[in-house]
Structure formats: C-alpha cells, structure tokens
C-alpha cells in the first residue's frame, strides 16, 4: 500500500483529501503546518506528498519543497494551490514540484495525478516495447500490433497510445493527456481530446475484443486489459 503525506491547513480540504486518497488505497497521514510537515517528511519515507502552496507559520509550501530538494529528497510532490496563474505554476515547477493542481480541484483529477506520481518509479521510461494484453507497441520502430495484426497510426496517435500504455491501469485525465502528449498546459474547454481518443479507439478497439481503452465518467480514460474498470470514487 503506497503511503501519502498530506500537508494542508484547511480542515475541510484536508479531510476531503484524506478520505479520497484512503478510498483510492493510500495510507494517508496529514499535517497542518509547514514545521510539522517538514519534521514528518524527514522521519519517514513517502511515496508521494500532496503539499498546499500557502501554509500558516514560518515555512510555506514552496519553502518546504525547496528544503526537500536541497536535502536531496526526491519524493514526488504534487503542489495544491489556490493561486491559478501560469506564473505560479512555473514557480512551483521550478522549485522542484512534480505536478501542480489548482483549487478547487476535482478529486478524480487529483487521484489520477497522485497515482501518476506514486507509480512513477514502477514503470520504466526506458522500456522500448510496451505490451498490454494482446496490444504491442514498439517505441523504436513505431510499430503497433494487436493480435499480430499491424495497426497504422498517425504520429500523434502513436504518442497518445504510448502515453496510455505507459500509464496502464491508471486513470489519465484530459489535461494530463494534453500535457503529456501535446505538451501544452491549458484547459481546452471543448471535446478535442475525446475526439482524439475516439479516433484511436476506432483503430485499436473497434475490430478487436476485449476493448482496452475505457472511459471513466467525469475523470478521463484508462487503458487496461481488465474487462470493466470499476467506478471511481469522487
């Protein structure tokens, strides 16, 4: 069971975070201020940290993060902030955070991102041949086969499938896809990502069984060999 430290001063948000993360299978501990959080970070090894940007007391979120990175602590950190601006996001990422989410947030988005961070070490970026059930993708030759049949994909479709396969069994949200595949960070508002996924689906899943790409309502998509993907707590 992966463990997760939540450092958040607002009681309501903290309880919401803790119950959501516990339901998703994390062992969760929470701290309410920067000093206590900093101590807790040094006592235990954590798989992932959810850190509020603004904290009462001497040390705020960015301060904690900078101290962690200065200590050589590479634990994945998701910054949670009410400050929604590109500048703030860039500052957070520069300070060494691995991801940045603004309040108010949707639990499914947060869970997908925490999951992505905590699993970061379990899947290998170096793997050149990815396999999910009977679907195979070779990064070097850019060849995709399913049940031995070669499937022709556009370059962007290929990268989309690669991203989904590298996050197998994990929910990826639309903004994660836009960031991970197109490398843009903004809210596309319309259904562009859905249309891209449905195109990919028609090539990967239409003529084959079982379907591998699943829609998770209100959250995003998951690529998984499991026939159905259970409802996501939100």
């Amino acid at each position: 069971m992966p463990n997760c430290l939540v450092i958040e001063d607002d009681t309501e948000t903290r309880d919401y975070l803790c119950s959501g993360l516990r339901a998703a299978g994390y062992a969760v501990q929470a701290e309410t201020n920067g000093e206590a959080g900093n101590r807790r970070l040094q006592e235990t090894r954590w798989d992932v940290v959810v850190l509020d940007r603004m904290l009462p007391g001497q040390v705020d979120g960015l301060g904690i993060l900078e101290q962690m990175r200065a200590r050589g602590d590479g634990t994945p950190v998701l910054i949670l902030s009410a400050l929604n601006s590109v500048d703030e996001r860039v500052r957070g990422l520069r300070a060494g955070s691995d991801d940045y989410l603004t309040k108010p947030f949707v639990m499914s988005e947060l869970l997908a991102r925490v999951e992505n961070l905590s699993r970061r070490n379990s899947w290998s970026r170096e793997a050149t041949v990815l396999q999910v059930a009977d679907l195979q993708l070779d990064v070097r030759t850019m060849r995709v086969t399913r049940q031995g049949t070669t499937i022709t994909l556009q370059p962007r479709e290929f990268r989309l499938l690669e991203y989904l396969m590298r996050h197998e069994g994990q929910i990826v949200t639309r903004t994660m896809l836009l960031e991970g595949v197109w490398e843009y960070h903004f809210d596309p508002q319309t259904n562009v990502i859905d249309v891209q996924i449905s195109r990919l689906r028609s090539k990967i899943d239409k003529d084959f069984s079982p379907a591998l790409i699943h829609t998770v309502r209100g959250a995003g998509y998951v690529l998984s060999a499991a026939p159905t993907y259970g409802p996501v707590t939100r």
Partner: protein
Amino acid sequence: MARSPDSGRPGLRGSIAFRLAVGYGVLLAVSMATLSAIVYFGTVGVFEHSIDNKIMTVETHLADAWFRDGRIGLVREIDAQLHDLIDTDTEVVGLVDAKGRILAGNMGRWFGDLPASRELAFGRMERNGAPVSVRLIATRLEDGSRLVVGRDLIELDAIRTVVERALLISAAVSILLAFFGAQIFRSRLEARIGRIRRTTARIAAGELSSRIVVMGNDEFARLGDDINRMLDRIEALMEGVRHVSNSIAHDLRTPLSRVRSRLDRALQASADPHALVADARLAIEDIDSVISLFDKLLQIAALESGVRAGTFERLDLAAIAHDMTELYEAAAEEQGIALHFTGTPTTIRGDRDLLASALASLIDNAIKYGRNGGKVDVEVATVDGAPALTVRDYGQGVPPEDMDKLTRRFYRVDQSRHLPGNGLGLSIVTAITQLHEGTLALRRLEPGFEASMVFPRA
C-alpha cells in the same frame, strides 16, 4: 472626505494666483524703475552735461583773455561776457583775489570753500540776496587770484523737480495698477479653477455624468478637455464593471438555482441511491461550470495586470499553430469542417501555453460559428513586418451591429445563444494578445469571419 470648493479657498500665501500676481507686480515695478532711471538720466543727466560744457567754454575763453591781455583784458572780457545777453540770468562769473575779495563779475558771497583748481563742483552762493545752488569751476591765476566761472542751477532744479514728480506719480499709479491687476488676475484664475473644482466635487459626490464646461482653447480649456476625457474613460470602465457584475450575477444564478433544485430533489428522493448519485453528479457538473467561469474571470484579471510577461521566451508561432490545428483537426472534421494550416516559421516573444489557448479559443469559435462554411483556415504570416496569427471561417459571419461588442465580457451574439459558451472567449483572447503587446483585429468577410492576432514587429 472631499473638500468642498468654497471651504478650500487658500490663504494668500497658499494661493498660486496671488503668488503669480505678486511676481507679476514685482516684475512690473522693476521694469518701471529701469524705465524711470533711463528717463531721468536721459533728461536731467543730459542737461547737467550741457551746463558743464557751457561752463568750460566760458572758462577757456576767459583764461585766454588773461594770457593774452592780463588782468585788464580779463576784467574787460568778464564784463563783455556778462553783457552779451546770452544766459545772463544764470551765468555766474567772478574774479577773486588771494584774500578772497571779489574784484570783478556778478558773483555773490559764496558758502564754504571754493573748489580746488580746474575742478567742476557743486556749491552754494548768494545771488540777488538769496542763496542758490550753483555749478562752478575755480581757476587759480599766476598772480594768486582766482577766476570763478559757474551757473545758477535754478533751471536744472526745476526740470529735476518736474521729472522726479512725474516718476513718483507714475510709480504710485503702477503699484496701484499692479495690485488691482493682481486681484483681478487672481479672481479670474480662481473662477476658472473653481469651475473645474465644482465639477470634480460633483463627481466625487457621485454625479458621474457631470462634465467640465470647456470654453475657448486656452490652457484651462485643454485641462478641462483632458479631465473630461479621463472621466469618459472612467465612466466607460464603470459601465463595463456594472455590465460584468450583472452578467456574473445572471450567469451564476442559472447553474446555482439548478444545483439547488437538484439537491432539493435529491433530499426528497434520498431512498433511491442511483437517483442520489446522478443528482450529485449533475450538481457537481454545474458547480464545475461556475468554477470555470470564475477561473476565466480571474484569468482575464491576471492577464490584464500583465504580471505574466516575466515568463516570456522566444518561440515559433507557426509551431504552435501547427500543433493546435492538429489537435482540433479531428474535432473539426466531426462537424464537417476541414481545418487547414499554412504558414512559415515566425519567431516572437511570448508564453507558449497562453498563445496556444488563445488560438484554441479562436479555432473553437470558428468551428462553432462557421459550421455551415465547410472549412476553417489557420494562417501564420508576416504582414508589413508584423507577425500575425489569423483564423478565418466561411460561415454566416457576425451581424455588423455586433462587431464592436464582440470582445466585451459576457457578450454573445443573439443567434449563438443556443450554443455552449459564456461570452468570455474573445475577452481572454484580447487580454492574451494585449499581454503580448499585440492587437486583435476582427473582420467581417463575405462569407465568414476573420480573427487576427497581430504582434509587434520582431
């Protein structure tokens, strides 16, 4: 608290009008003094000089007689001089021996010492029984006697008195004029400023539509014009704020009342867990739309404050346009629209994500509102050296009367109210373009509509 214009009448020292008037008066007095000095020395001075010349001429003439014919000749010549009927009433001539006795001439008893030899000086002398002031020269002769030549200064004194009196009167008149002029000047200045102050006081009291009455084309008129222009701008901004808050209230009411009714229904039907879940989900969706509305408003505010320019970097506009075209291609095709990109690499300084989201918004609009046009063109080009990013559709376009309202917050063209959206898209695009020091040009075309982000020359 705003000071009312009447309570704010400044003390004399604090009044700029008074200080200007005093300065003006002093300047006038100095120039009057200079003018008076010139007049005085031009009249009295010249007269004095001519007297001195006459004295010297007579003295030289008499001294010659002495050299030529001795004392006898001199006395004869003095007599002739006094009876030549020229200046006889002001001329003073005399021969005084070493003991101070008057030997010849018309001079009377003098007061004090005679001046040193061959030196013009002022002195006093008895003439016709009364002391008068004279200008005189005393020349010592070889036998110890002295030749005195001089002139009664009665004429000079008369002229001097007249000139001095005239100058004194004019000085008094000019000081009076300066004083009253300053008062008039001050009251006129205060009247002009008072008009402006009364207007600003009315505005401070909330009467925002009041304006300064501008007359003529002087400095105050121009100041009034400037203030009026500033007030127009403030009023327009206030109008905008009012419009925005009305729209926010309206746009929030709809989803919030939907949430409320759903939660209400969920409470009543709490026996059915499926209905509860469905209602909760819909309520969350509505709240999400409210949050996204706020996010957009905050984004516009943040963009307009311009703080983000710090993250700018050099980037290729065409690469972003290419990426966004590719991202939207499939969605456009579903709507029966062919999305097409043309352009060459064009470097500008900017924020990649902001530019991408602005372009995404323009493409989204073009697909949404240009649906029946069949195609949408995205183009990156350099027009007159200025990089431009253009999105053009071939749909039904925008009615001309709506053109200048398009970038207003929450503004939606009537015919598009049934389509999803909140009327903030073009406001955000405008804010992003302005953050990049560019302008957003919107044009009606036959057929269709074109939006162009034009950036400053590299």
